[in-house]
């Protein structure tokens, strides 16, 4: 059980994985924060992301639905903000990162999904007392180390 | 002067050959822009025309028209015509005077009542009869008396046609034109100051042969007054090209450029000067370098100065502008002060708008 001590190490290990395994890991990270998002399209996207044999166009359609989910959930300019909804928005963005093709964004899909999920957790913690963000980070380390050892 | 001879017989007595007479008729036909075929008609009409009795009344006039008519400097066919028509009364030209002259006029009128031709030059004073009388008879009375039996009246010169110089403001004598007094008889105006000799003869010839000629709205024969000087002016191309004389002896004037800027009234003056010209076609005012005065137009004396274009303002415009600006500034300053007061009042009564003031009372 390799021990992950900090984000630098966490990110190094994630970026060292190949694209397909990064995608599966990203799906795991998003799955971890899925309860924060009530848009069922996102859960479908996570299923496709976590399926190692998902075809390219399945992933492409998933990416398009993810983008639609992002648009539908982002905060409206000038509207009263609701951080719980905003958490859902970041889950959707994390899901989109998971199914996005390689080289789309710096850090690769796994790291982006991790960050997105953590941001979702941060949003949840804003209006509530418990510190979701910290837990999310620890859980992500656990998921990675389990994944590496399996 | 035997009254019963026809014009043709008289001319032959004077030694005018048939050919010479026909040449004159052709010249007149072309002058009147009549077709060549009409030459024979003119000749026949002139030849058989009874010698019309003509009574020439001169009222408030400078005798310029008569001078132009007689042009004592050279005998010509026009001259002979006047010898041949029965000029029964012309107090400048006739030898008789006093009661003899008046008796001649009375008898001519009696004999040719309703047929004689009345020619008038000079305007008729209506202010006070005493201003101008002949043999104790005021011009108005004499005009009325003679006009009653006239077949037609020819007003020769701008005075008789439109009132001329006596009529110019302030018109002390209350001078009026023939047409102002006579409305029951055909009046032919032959304006000009003076009119062109050949135009007078031409009008009479046309009257003798064809009767009342076609007249424009100012009762002027279209044959001579149908076109403006401007339309027939030999300097028109310069006007069109925009080449004008700026002063009387500048380069433009010497080059014969258009005199519009020197006040030429050619564009608004209708006469035959530019075509028939004066002194047997020698020249006419514009050709001699002087702008046309518009002498054949009504009130040309008062048309705002001979040396100013007809369409430029006569008043002092810059002074008017200065007055306007002054008044405008005063009124504007007042209105500006009112506006500033009204605006500062609005600022004074301004109540700070807070988030509670964004909805109307009932909507809140």
């Amino acid at each position, binding site marked *: 059980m390799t021990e992950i001590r900090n984000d630098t190490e966490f990110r190094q290990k994630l970026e060292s994985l190949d694209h397909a395994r990064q995608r599966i890991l990203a799906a795991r990270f998003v799955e971890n924060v899925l309860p924060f998002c009530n848009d069922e399209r996102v859960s479908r996207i996570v299923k496709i992301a976590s399926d190692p044999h998902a075809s390219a166009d399945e992933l492409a359609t998933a990416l398009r639905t993810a983008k639609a989910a992002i648009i539908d959930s982002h905060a409206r300019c*000038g509207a009263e903000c609701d951080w719980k909804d905003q958490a859902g928005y970041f889950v959707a963005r994390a899901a989109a990162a998971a199914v996005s093709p390689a080289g789309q964004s710096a850090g690769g899909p796994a790291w982006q999904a991790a960050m997105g999920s953590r941001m979702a957790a941060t949003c949840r913690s804003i209006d509530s007392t418990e510190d979701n*963000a910290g837990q999310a980070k620890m859980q992500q380390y656990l998921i990675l180390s389990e994944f590496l050892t399996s | 002067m035997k009254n019963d001879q026809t014009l043709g017989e008289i001319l032959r007595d004077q030694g005018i050959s048939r050919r010479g007479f026909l040449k004159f008729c052709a010249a007149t036909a072309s002058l009147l822009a009549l077709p060549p075929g009409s030459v024979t008609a003119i000749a026949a009409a002139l030849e058989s025309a009874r010698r019309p009795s003509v009574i020439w009344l001169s009222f408030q006039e400078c005798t310029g028209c008569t001078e132009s008519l007689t042009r004592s400097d050279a005998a010509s066919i026009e001259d002979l015509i006047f010898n041949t028509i029965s000029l029964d009364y012309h107090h400048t030209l006739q030898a008789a005077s006093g009661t003899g002259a008046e008796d001649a006029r009375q008898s001519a009128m009696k004999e040719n009542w309703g047929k004689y031709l009345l020619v008038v030059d000079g305007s008729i004073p209506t202010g006070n009869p005493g201003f101008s009388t002949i043999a104790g008879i005021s011009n108005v009375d004499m005009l009325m008396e003679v006009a009653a039996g006239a077949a037609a009246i020819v007003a020769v010169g701008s005075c008789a046609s439109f009132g001329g110089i006596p009529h110019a403001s302030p018109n002390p004598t209350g001078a009026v034109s023939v047409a102002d007094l006579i409305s029951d008889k055909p009046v032919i105006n032959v304006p000009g100051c003076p009119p062109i000799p050949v135009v007078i003869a031409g009008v009479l010839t046309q009257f003798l042969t064809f009767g009342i000629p076609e007249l424009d709205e100012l009762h002027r024969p279209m044959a001579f007054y149908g076109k403006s000087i401007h339309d027939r002016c030999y300097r028109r191309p310069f006007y069109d090209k925009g080449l004008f004389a700026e002063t009387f002896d500048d380069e433009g004037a010497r080059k014969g450029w258009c005199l519009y800027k020197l006040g030429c009234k050619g564009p608004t003056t209708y006469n035959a000067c530019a075509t028939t010209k004066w002194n047997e076609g020698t020249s006419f005012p514009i050709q001699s370098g002087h702008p046309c005065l518009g002498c054949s137009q009504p009130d040309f004396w008062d048309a705002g100065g001979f040396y100013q274009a007809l369409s430029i303002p006569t008043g002092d415009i810059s002074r008017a502008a200065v007055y306007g600006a002054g008044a405008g500034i005063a009124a504007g300053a007042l209105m500006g002060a009112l506006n500033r007061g*009204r605006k500062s009042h*609005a600022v004074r009564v*301004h109540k700070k*708008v*807070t988030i509670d003031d*964004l909805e109307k009372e009932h909507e809140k």
Partner: protein
Amino acid sequence: MSGASLERGINALKEQIDAPTATFFSACVHCGMCAEACLFFTETGDPKYTPIHKLEPMRKVWHQEYTFWGKFARILGLSKPLTDAELTEWETLVYDSCTLCGRCSMVCPVGNDIAYMIRKMREGMAASGHAPAGMIGATRRAVTIGSPMGVKLPALEAQIRHTEEEIGFAIPVDVVGAEYLCTLSSMEIMNFPEYIGAIARIFHETGVSWTISSEAFEATNSGIQIGVSDIAAELVERIVRAAEKLKVKAVISPECGHAYTAIRWEGPNLIGRPYPFKVFHILEVLDDLRKTGKLHTTGKESRRLTYHDPCQISRRGGVFEQPRNLLNMVAENFVEMPENGIMNWCCGAGGGVSANERADELKMKAFRRKKAQLDAVAPDAVVSACANCRIQLEEGLEVNNMDIPVISLTETIAEHLAGETSTEARQS
């Protein structure tokens, strides 16, 4: 008698009308060219969206109050005074169908600055209770909570903590004596928190001393959008107080359009005194760093990029060369949209339109003008520098199912930072 009223509205208009306004109303010759410059007309074809027509009520107040002929006509009863019903009818014209983009002001042949007048007319509309509900809510939250979307400090602190973890170093908050005070817009804090990470990394890399103020982190100013200078002044005053307290040399306006207009151009006139500090848009700061050689980037975007000029930043703000200089540092295939820079077409959501639900349908119709521009250029991605434009572009592209990502210029610069803190170097 608190609350909005017709009388207070007309009084506000009388306060706002000045020599330029009177000149503009006296110069308009009804030539209709401003309609051809307004995307709300070009995309709907409805003549009522002709910009100068949107000012009719204010024109009437000017004519009846400040001209001899108008006053005379009113006394004779020839022209009727302004009614509340008229203002109600004009609500959708002055708010829903106008983003204050100012394109009409650029084409008017007699030179009328119509946007300048719409901004003034909104003072009368708001004071008479004719501002849209959405904007009233946002303005109320901006005054009471400090952000039109209700973002409170704890939320910002959470975002800051998250960003600090991501970038690996601290974000200065309430640092007295810093050179720059950075302000953020709620849209960024909520939808695009990466912006905070981007400026942190850039300033870290270029050694810029900066800080965020916990008392005045909000850059947006719904006061100038709704048209209430009293409220706008209060919002600006907060930033000025914070800047003075932290003794900063300059305040940076974030990737937001109207925030820049509010703090840079209207601010001093709202609070009635010049600032003791300078004001820059983030792009001005980045371009300055580029010019002074402090900002180094590596690698070039191979994707075909185009830039959408936010109206309040380029045409109404004067910041239009900087984005090009910055983009040319990081993009090898940067192509301009037809009619760009100070003559760009608006995205359709500025000037408070996006905060006004009633205008949603019209807003999407207006987007077709921008769609036409994008069709002409067919970029792989659109770069812009205003969070509200980004949201509108994303929504518009989604509705027209065009798969073009919309990215922030500042974030793109951050991604290409050459120094040690950039993503590649962080492994060491």
